[in-house]
């Protein structure tokens, strides 16, 4: 099911074709980023944030491989254990696997997430990455930047910037986890806390 029956759709932000075009552009931006002498390709790696960031990162890796013939190292990061709000807001968050099969030391990492919002997940992800080693740099890629930041976090690569209100949510749906691709802006349906 793409959306909950309780969701009130305010707008569809992307359909499957839009999403693919956006990812093509983001993949090209990463490649351009590679051309920078300060960012040698042999030290670059993609890290997808659980859960949909993983699928996005995998697609970006495949697109970069198809266009540039580069096989970038790919890892999976779950920052749930580093969240600062799980006891205040929610019960029993689901911990997903972290699997980074390369040494992050001195790597130039592109951290891939589907939505950037308050910045707290990014902060948690940075804490988690720093516990795994000392990357040379970390760039943030977000498919959607919905604003309303609570921490000083700014993505380096953005698919689409969408101003939102706290009562709204951005639903990213990907074929790997959902029925199809698409991004929707919905009115918050239920109290997910």
């Amino acid at each position, binding site marked *: 099911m793409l959306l909950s029956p309780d969701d009130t759709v305010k707008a569809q932000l992307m359909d499957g074709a839009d999403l693919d075009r956006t990812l093509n552009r983001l993949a090209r931006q990463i490649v351009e980023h590679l051309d920078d002498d300060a960012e040698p390709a042999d030290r670059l790696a993609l890290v997808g944030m659980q859960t949909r960031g993983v699928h996005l990162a995998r697609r970006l890796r495949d697109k970069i491989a198809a266009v540039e013939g580069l096989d970038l190292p790919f890892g999976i990061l779950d920052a749930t254990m580093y969240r600062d709000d799980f006891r205040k807001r*929610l*019960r029993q968050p689901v911990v997903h*696997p972290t699997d980074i099969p390369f040494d992050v030391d001195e790597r130039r990492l592109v951290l891939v997430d589907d939505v950037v919002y308050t910045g707290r997940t990014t902060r948690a992800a940075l804490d988690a990455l720093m516990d795994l080693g000392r990357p040379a740099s970390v760039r943030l890629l977000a498919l959607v930047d919905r604003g309303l930041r609570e921490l000083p976090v700014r993505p380096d690569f953005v698919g689409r910037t969408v101003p939102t209100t706290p009562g709204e949510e*951005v639903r990213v749906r990907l074929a790997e986890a959902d029925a199809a691709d698409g991004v929707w802006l919905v009115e918050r349906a239920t109290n997910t806390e």
Partner: protein
Amino acid sequence: MTEETLDTRRSSLDALHHRHLLGLTGYSTGEIRLILRTAREFREVLDRPIKRVPSLRGVTVVNLFFEPSTRTRLSFELAEKRLSADVVNFSSAGSSVSKGETLKDTARNIEAMKIDMVVIRHKSPGAAHFLTRCIDSVVLNAGDGAHEHPTQALLDLLTLSDLALPRFPADQLQQGDLGGLRVSILGDITHSRVARSNIHGLRALGAEVMLCGPRTMLPREVEQMGVCTTDRLDEALDGCDVAMALRIQLERQSAGLFPSLREYHERFGIKAEHLARYPDLYVMHPGPVNRGVELASEVVDSERSVILNQVTNGVAVRMACLYLLSGGIG
């Protein structure tokens, strides 16, 4: 992970519905699988250069140990510290308990110092349950008399589910489906809290369980728990995937439950010849092992013994339990 909410999607079958961990009895198959799945992720943390996550920052855990324990206490303490909790240790020796203070008063006084979770080990069955009626903190049972030792059973289940047994499809055991797995628990079943928790956990995940030991150590009517019993070791090991030997408490001999340690080893101890006769058999033990009693020394040190895996998994399982149960604090 989208930033909008933490990911709490799961089916109602695999959410933890308990506030405390008092025993595995009452925990559903889904709940046990959730703990094992979470523990597997925490085990990955233990392999990192920095083996600590901030999940329990600001949470105070008291380890109330009214009975001697080395590995369970260390394991809990490590798990708490790996989660960044504040840890306070209490042992009855040299405390007000030796002056006659009751468990209830001790616990209520400690809780008045503003703590969040209590890990309790006590010689009396039901002590952990009793504690939940005295204090508001989350209670985890680290062994209460001959009643239950849930985290030991959970770490045993995690160890079992990671075994590479060729006769099972890939991932079946890792998914927490122990259907078709044959486990024999050997030793003093009657006095074992480990056996009691394990029987429930193993049965909940679908394993077949056989109990083996001297008839004086097999509880009556235990078959009602869906297990078989025997007093012949070969019968217990024949067709068995994992033999779980229990520690023999040496004072049982003076109680007349078996004639001598040597005879116990002869009849119920796993020896090198058993490993040779049953080449697919794995051996577990909750520790500490009486070498030459439950297990021959060469069995303890063999590649088919997963005792040290159990110890490692103990920290991960306790991290998972503390983490999942702490979700309700605040």
